[in-house]
């Protein structure tokens, strides 16, 4: 009883406080706030453990661009110092082993190059001058070399550096000057994500830090880093502790468009002695030497062609040549990981139950301990003595900030306050994690985010709100307890909607079996999972079941198109970068392995699977539901080409179904430019209001 009274007293106080703060200075989030948020990324702990270098990216909406700079903060927290200040992008800060210098990537000279800056003062100086640009600096442990990545023409890559660089320069200039802009394409994966490949390759170079000639360590017609972000967890190459060799992740040797077989190689820094470390026919990557030099730990998948296969952590014993799986019993993916200096433990983030948590693996017993729980946590740095960890964290209520904790995950401390002032003014409701029963009795997790005005307007009993149902992409992804810069549930909720964002079959972080069950079943059990979620929402006392809309991008867009052919539940659908016709999607996307895996083969070998769940095959049903649709698709989207959206829009218009097509000629799969993003939000919210608020 005492307890109960205490609690109700507290709640009363909280209620008073919160209504007070709302009326005084807090307001719902506005579209413009999205551009005021500063993004914190890439924390790097100094070798002496005293400093963290990191990047803050700020948006300049009027100039329609963003700018990144490098900052320093004491690792114990405190005053932030801005280290670089060019109006162009400064990224990827990397400490020299002696802690005196930071290498970073900057476009200040026009092209991307590696620069060095003395941490104690003085201006940055340009290290690389290679005509093809440089990125991803990695120091050798002895501090004498820097390895970097440059994109070059493979046909010159065997030649001495100066000659090769001159030929690269000449070829690029000739292309630039030529009035003929045609491309003669001889193999697939000729464009990727939102850029043309143009038969160039990403190679790894090493060069002395005191200047001198870079050496191409990975010549030939093959990329030395994964070109698909699906297979990259960060810097995919690293030096051995003795600074004599590097390990790197190379792309498949053949059939790159439908092959996921990345392998790890080592090569001496003089370019000799290349060895293939892995022979697994699926993807391997992210090699990391243990500090004692005994091991290379890396990530590995097991099923060739399956990009969303479980990522295990494998330990390669450099002496015995044995590969040992360390995460057999761990039913989640190992993301980017970090060794402790004593070579006994590995820390790694992994998705679990709609959060991205930090785990610690003890090598000797393969024991995996959860260290950090809530939010989306990444970028683990470990102090030299192994006693402290540093990481980034974001939640559904707060963008990324830097944190520290003791190695057992206790004593969590927020180090940066980058967005505190902005967020002190914004009113949110904390997202609620709920579960419901999906297809075949499986438990499905979902987030529910109420509009910020919910409490002020009286809560549950008083008002019913329209619902916006968000479906995530991937499909192997998840709505996590993290801050989203593009599909941010809070900004949707701030429009006066209850937002529901479920994690149905196919979502990451709920075990591999749960994830596997979407492949070859795109509109099957996952659709049932989602519709059960809608039923759950309909029963909520504060949801207006007659005013529900759904929105999604990529696979989420596919699901909107599937909804359009399968249900009349929604007043409107918003479909972004969506797949409409599995056949044309197969023939125009770049990472062909994805479609082949998801639909069980090529369209000519498995036409039934392509027919079964392709929305275009069910178009006629749309006449039954006539759900108005907003179609968003962008010209530079090479993953799901714009012609998917065009086919859908043509169908809608020809059927006389209310529809609009928002087309960005200068955007890819997502909308990135600030003013484009603003138009995107305005158009989407106006469209929603038309159908949910009238």
């Amino acid at each position, binding site marked *: 009883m005492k307890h109960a009274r205490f609690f109700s007293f507290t709640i009363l106080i909280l209620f008073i406080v919160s209504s007070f703060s709302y009326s005084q200075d807090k307001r719902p989030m506005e579209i413009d706030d999205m551009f005021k948020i500063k993004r914190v990324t890439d924390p790097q702990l100094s070798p002496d453990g005293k400093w963290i270098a990191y990047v803050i990216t700020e948006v300049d909406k009027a100039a329609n661009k963003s700018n990144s700079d490098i900052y320093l903060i004491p690792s114990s927290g405190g005053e932030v110092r801005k280290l670089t200040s060019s109006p162009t992008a400064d990224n990827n800060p990397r400490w020299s082993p002696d802690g005196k210098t930071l290498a970073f990537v900057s476009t200040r000279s026009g092209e991307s190059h590696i620069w060095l800056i003395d941490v104690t003062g003085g201006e940055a100086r340009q290290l690389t001058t290679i005509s093809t640009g440089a990125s991803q600096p990695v120091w050798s442990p002895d501090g004498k070399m820097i390895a970097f990545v440059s994109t070059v023409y493979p046909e010159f890559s065997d030649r001495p550096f100066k000659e090769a660089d001159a030929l690269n320069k000449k070829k690029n200039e000739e292309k630039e000057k030529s009035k*003929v802009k*045609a491309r003669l*394409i001889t193999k697939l994966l000729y464009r990727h994500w939102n850029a043309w490949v143009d038969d160039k390759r990403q190679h790894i170079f090493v060069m002395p830090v005191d200047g001198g000639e870079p050496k191409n360590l990975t010549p030939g017609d093959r990329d030395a880093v994964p070109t698909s972000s699906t297979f990259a967890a960060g810097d995919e190459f690293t030096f051995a502790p003795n600074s004599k060799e590097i390990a790197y992740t190379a792309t498949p040797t053949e059939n790159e468009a439908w092959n996921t077989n990345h392998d790890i190689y080592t090569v001496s820094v003089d370019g000799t002695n290349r060895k293939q470390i892995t022979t697994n026919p699926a993807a391997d990557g992210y090699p990391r030497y243990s500090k004692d030099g005994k091991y290379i730990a890396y990530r590995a998948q097991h099923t060739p062609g399956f990009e969303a296969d479980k990522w295990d952590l494998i330990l390669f014993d450099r002496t015995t040549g044995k590969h040992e799986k360390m995460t057999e019993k761990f039913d989640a993916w190992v993301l980017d990981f970090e060794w402790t200096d004593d070579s006994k433990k590995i820390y790694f983030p992994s998705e679990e139950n709609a959060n991205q948590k930090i785990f610690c693996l003890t090598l000797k017993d393969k024991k995996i301990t959860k260290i950090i729980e809530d939010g989306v946590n990444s970028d683990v740095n470990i102090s030299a003595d192994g006693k402290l960890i540093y990481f980034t964290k974001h939640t559904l209520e707060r963008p990324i900030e830097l944190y520290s904790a003791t190695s057992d995950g206790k004593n969590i401390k927020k180090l940066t306050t980058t967005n505190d002032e902005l967020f002190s003014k914004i009113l949110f409701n904390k997202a609620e994690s709920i579960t419901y029963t999906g297809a075949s009795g499986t438990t499905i997790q979902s987030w529910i985010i109420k509009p910020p005005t919910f409490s002020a307007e009286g809560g549950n009993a008083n008002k019913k709100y329209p619902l916006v149902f968000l479906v995530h992409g991937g499909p192997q992804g998840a709505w996590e307890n993290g801050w989203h810069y593009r599909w941010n549930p809070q900004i949707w909720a701030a429009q006066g909607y209850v937002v529901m964002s479920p994690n149905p079959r196919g979502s990451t972080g709920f075990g591999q079996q749960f994830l596997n069950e979407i492949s070859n079943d795109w509109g099957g059990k996952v659709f049932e999972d989602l519709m059960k979620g809608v039923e759950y929402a309909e029963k909520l006392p504060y949801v207006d079941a007659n005013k529900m809309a759904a929105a999604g991008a990529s696979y989420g867009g596919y699901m909107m198109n599937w909804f359009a052919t399968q249900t009349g539940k929604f007043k409107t659908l918003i479909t972004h970068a969506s797949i409409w*016709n599995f056949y044309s999607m197969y*023939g125009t996307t770049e990472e062909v392995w994805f479609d082949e895996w998801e639909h069980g083969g090529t*369209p000519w070998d498995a036409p039934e699977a392509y027919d079964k769940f392709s929305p275009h095959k069910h178009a006629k049903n749309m006449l039954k539901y006539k759900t108005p649709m907003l179609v968003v698709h962008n010209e530079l989207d090479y993953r799901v080409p714009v*012609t998917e959206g*065009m086919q859908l829009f043509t169908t809608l218009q020809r059927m006389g179904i209310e529809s609009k097509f928002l087309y960005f000629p200068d955007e890819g799969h997502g909308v990135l430019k600030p003013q484009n993003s603003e138009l995107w939000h305005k158009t989407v919210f106006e469209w929603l209001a038309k159908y949910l608020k009238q």
Partner: protein
Amino acid sequence: MKKYNLYLKLFLLLILVSTISISQEKRNFTLDDMFKFTRVADPQISPDGKWIAYVATAIDKEKNRSNSDIWLIPSTGGTPRQLTSSEKADDRPRWSPDGKNIAFNSTRDGSPQIYLIDVTGGEARKVTSIPNGTSNHIWMPDGKTLIFQTSVYPDCFTGDWTKDKTCNENKDEEKSKNKVKARVIDELMYKHWNKWVEETRNHIFITSVDGKVVKQLTNGKFTVPPLALSGNEDVQISPDGNEITFSTNMDKDIAWSTNNDIYIIPTTGGQPKRISVSDGADVSPRYSPDGNYIAYRSQKTPMYEADLWRILLYNRKTGETKILTDETNFDNWVDDLIWSPDSKTIYFTAEVKGNIPIYSVNLKKEVKEVAGGPYWHENVRLSKDGKFLTFTRREISYPNEVYTFSIEEKKVKRITDVNNKFLSEVKLAKGEEVWFDGAAGKVQGWIIKPPDFDPKKKYPLLLIIHGGPQQMFGNAYRNDWQAFPGAGFVVMFTNPEGSPGYGQKFVEAISKDWGGNCYISLMKAVDYAVSLGYIDEKKISAYGGSFGGYMVNWMLGKTDRFAALISHAGVYNLEAMYGTTEELWFPEWEMGGTPWDNPELYLKWSPHFLVKNFKTPTLITHGELDFRVPIQQGMEIFTALQRRGVPSKFLWFPDEGHWIMKPQNNELWYKTMIDWLNEWGK
């Protein structure tokens, strides 16, 4: 011995003769020659009949562009005189009614504008300064005003051009300054051919000849001339200058409507009044000189862009319309129309059996051939006194020149020789007309042999397939029919099912039967070529663009007979094609409905279901600005070819539409095609 001596002497003589002939001999056609001849077009007879103004266009390959200028030549022949000489395009010469000036279009200052030049001398002066440029200018009979079209924002219209001009300029400036280049699209036909359709629409304007008084005569969401299926010269002025007639499509959903109609409007402006009655396309209105009639071209069937083009006659007094030509008296497509001065006869051209002759029809519906032969007669004009015609004419081995034709004497005279030098240097291949048994009756074709053809040798064959599918190949000078023979290939091209010129039934035979009889006829064309004895059966290739590209894709899935294939802008996945092309009436007509209402033919005729048969090495070429057959069609087939391990390449032009137009792009295109044929088909 004697004999030997004789032989030796003969031999020496032969060597001597051949050396002499070599020194004077013409060279084989090379790719460079595609850019070396001059194109002539748009001859215009002066009101007094003494002069012909025409446009000559030369290509500057290094600069990657062409330059057009206006020339004058006596209509009886003689020395031509260059009237304009800007480095930009000067074209569309139009004589003032008094014959003293020529109004022409020029891009010398940027956007195309109307200029006026005194034919007796002096520099041109600028008439208009219209923000988005002018097109299709014609003189009013009073000689004091001109009408033209330009694109404007319909929202800007108040009727006061000084205000509206500012409004248009402001909107354009706002747009170009805006960092957001997104489009919010709420209806189809948002792109067309190779351009995005902006909010602006083309409308009819009138300007005083000093350019000071400009007035917009039409406004609204429609566009003049119509976006699709326009005739040429779709805006005309009545002989008394009081009325304008034009063609446009005012349907709400123009993406699936071919319903262009003929409208009239007073020259002072006002509401357009529709005078045509067909639900199909009505275009090319022409006032009779006596002012009694408007003749126009008309299709009967809505959504059928390849329907028979007939001549309809609208009586301006009674409002009645009668049919002047249809399948009963002329079963081919009527093209350009010209009234005789006495308003009793209409001259017209039409594609017939590989040629474009000139015909006439009188008001009693009697059709006669006026000028024929193995030629294409184009740009036909009639002198004011009705005594002679002028036109450009070409044949397979002879590029365009300007000709006159006296109607009474039926005498043809070539009056220009712009390509004399070119013709004296280059061997142009000649075409041989052939008829062979197709899928259902005789089919016409042509064979073009390499210039040095030796009947004892075997040659590789290249079958060239036309687009449309409702288009006609024939007796015309074309680069491809010279370039491939010049590179050593025997070229064959034919007019299989779907081709116009053989009666409307033959045109109709292609619809809903894309891979059917047309394919059989093409394979029979190859049989025929092989039967001639000089074709190497193992070295037969096929090349086609657009529907021709579709047919190549179909062949890839249907036969292993070809050594190499080249598919340009080819349709591959009919369902995806439907969803991405702009003129929806076309697939809906050809496949018998939408893919959701009538899926059968979309599935039956789509090459993308034949991938498992793909074996023939195939070159794919496509332009990224092709909004008719979007480049994703080419991407899809290339993906399938690569995935199947079939030798293939993809030549991708980011700056071209349905056809490859820029000189250096065009050169690369031909070079890549010939390289491909040399690698696999020779």
